[in-house]
């Protein structure tokens, strides 16, 4: 694929509001997971809550979008000079040439959960703005209005690959000429459906998640919003960070269990390398999907080992943030950008003993090393797989 410049990127999760806090937490190995203290959630689990977002007010003219997801999105887009970067992009391209392509798995469903608890005797819901909160299109519509953009508006919901897919699908929109640039990324917020849902599958960790650990016992759910502006790379962009390649596949196997040999994961990673015109040896770090479940991490280890052997360091950063679902691919794109800028390979957090059955190059302590290219994995229910390659533009 044509390489794309990442003109600006920002991320907000339990490990930090904005990139500086995220960077500091990565270096200090300071995770953001805490015991779950929201009401009516599963007992005894930890989660990655962004409490700072809860008091955020939306601009008055956009108050109809108010919900947990929009508040977190608003907090995130106020960081790292993101709004100013979009203003500059509008001056370059025109507001009508900048698309908004965002992923979310549950959008503002938390608003419906609250309304459900206030149903009348006849079961009727109290009035609230379903279209601007619960609906999947609410998130891109909010950012589009908030940023004053007039380009194509796309909501992606492929479970836990949503945020990663936004980079790939926005790239297609730009390559086909529908836009010159795109705001991409995703936001997903804590809600009862998600926590109890993963609880029903017995996939929630007791205590903070421990991806790749021998004794890992599941996921910690987190919330996050992360956004980037991508546009075609120009000759003068050499050395800047960009999206170099992307690959996607389907398992065609089962709705919630990954293919045991990770065939879909292998296909997505190979596709990403091929589209970037790179060999496995060109990758300096693999940011794993690494949810902390027995099945995902074992499958992903096998898939990575098939392509990279143990030669390339890899890790999951979900020990810092929890699994932020439809935002995770976008959040981990921002983490990839930090790793490249700082020369950081973050080792998995909370791991006492690495699973001895693993054969990929999983690391559990931080390393300082030159990082020019990162491959980032996302996998989701429905057998959805997406791998992205970020790196310095040639």
């Amino acid at each position, binding site marked *: 694929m044509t390489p794309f410049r990442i003109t600006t990127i920002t991320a907000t999760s339990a490990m930090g509001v904005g990139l500086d806090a995220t960077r500091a937490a990565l270096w200090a190995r300071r995770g953001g997971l805490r015991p779950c203290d929201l009401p009516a959630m599963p007992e005894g689990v930890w989660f990655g809550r962004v409490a700072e977002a809860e008091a955020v007010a939306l601009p008055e003219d956009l108050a109809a979008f108010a919900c947990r997801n929009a508040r977190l999105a608003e907090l995130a887009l106020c960081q790292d000079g993101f709004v100013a970067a979009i203003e500059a992009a509008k001056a370059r391209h*025109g*507001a*009508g*040439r900048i698309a908004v392509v965002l992923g979310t798995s549950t*959008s503002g469903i938390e608003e*419906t*959960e609250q309304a*459900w*608890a206030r149903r009348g005797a006849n*079961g009727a*819901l109290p*009035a609230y703005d*379903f*279209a601007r909160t619960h*609906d*999947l299109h609410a998130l891109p*519509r909010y950012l*589009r*209005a908030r940023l004053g953009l007039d*380009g*194509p*508006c*796309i*909501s*992606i*919901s*492929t*479970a836990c690959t949503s945020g990663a*897919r936004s980079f790939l*699908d926005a*790239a*297609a*929109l730009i*390559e*086909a*000429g*529908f*836009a010159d640039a795109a705001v991409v990324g995703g936001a997903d917020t804590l809600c009862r*459906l998600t926590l*109890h*849902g993963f609880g*029903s599958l017995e996939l929630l960790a007791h205590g903070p998640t421990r991806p790749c650990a021998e004794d890992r016992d599941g996921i910690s759910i987190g919330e996050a919003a992360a956004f980037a502006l991508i546009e075609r790379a120009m000759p003068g962009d050499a050395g800047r960070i960009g999206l170099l390649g992307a690959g*996607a*596949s*389907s*398992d*065609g*196997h*089962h*709705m*919630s269990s990954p293919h045991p040999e990770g*065939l*879909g994961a292998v*296909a997505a990673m190979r*596709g990403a390398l091929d589209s970037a015109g790179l060999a496995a040896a060109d990758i300096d770090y693999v940011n794993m999907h690494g949810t902390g479940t027995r099945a995902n991490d074992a499958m992903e280890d096998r898939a990575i080992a098939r392509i990279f052997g143990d030669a390339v360091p890899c890790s999951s950063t979900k020990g810092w943030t929890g699994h932020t679902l439809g935002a995770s691919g976008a959040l981990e794109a921002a983490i990839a950008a930090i790793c490249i800028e700082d020369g950081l390979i973050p080792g998995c957090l909370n791991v006492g003993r690495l699973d001895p059955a693993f054969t990929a190059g999983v690391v559990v302590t931080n390393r300082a090393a030159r990082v020019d290219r990162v491959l980032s994995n996302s996998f*989701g*229910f*429905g*057998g*959805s797989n997406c791998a992205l390659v970020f790196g310095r533009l040639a």
Partner: protein
Amino acid sequence: MTPAVGIAGIGLLGPGLAGWAAARPVLAGLAPHEPAPLVPPVPALLPATERRRTGPSVRLALAVAAEAVQHSGLAPEDLDTVFASSNGEAQVIVSILEALHAPDGAISPTQFHNSVHNAAAGYWGIAAGSARSSVSLGGHDVVFATGLMQAVAQVVAWRAPVLFVTHDVPLPPPLTALRPGDASFAVALVLVPGGGAYGALRLGYSAQAATAEPPLPTGFDAIRAGNPAARALPLLVALATGRAMTLSLALPEAAALDIAVAP
């Protein structure tokens, strides 16, 4: 506008529109439209255990997808897919919300994995044995135009065929009071680079273009008003009549998708 993208196959299910072959003369005004309740067919392509787990929205999607792919003559496992649905499988979401507010609060694990918006795509992948790229989109009232734009973008950018499916069933109570709907509707198009046996499209995006939905033959307005996927009807009428024309479909907030249709 984009280069031409061909339509190699069409699948359709709507009230009184039972498959493209039967619906084409109705949409072209050559046969009477007799609206009949639509029962989403059981997806024969899926293994029995998976089949039982599918709801009406997924069943609709799989039925039109299978029809379109069959007409295209292409192998289902060779097609990238774009699924678009405003409401997804809402009956699953409603069941989970009910369960969350019941005294024991226990929800079904099968229902949870079926609650993802890409459930239809996931079941299609299992049914078709496909390892190809797949994306699932929302889009509220403009889900058809949004999905078509993304699907055509992929065909143009990646120069590979795409199976594009839009499917929606009305929200069940109590959500239906917040977002009314009264018919099920699904359409699938196999889109290929260049030309196709069922016509060709070129698309353009207009950032500022206040647009009314194009006129429809008598009787179809109510179907379109009752289901966001049925906003495909003006394009389907154009393809059925085989006349070259340009349509504009609304996009948020005041944008439009311009569609040049060639027979």
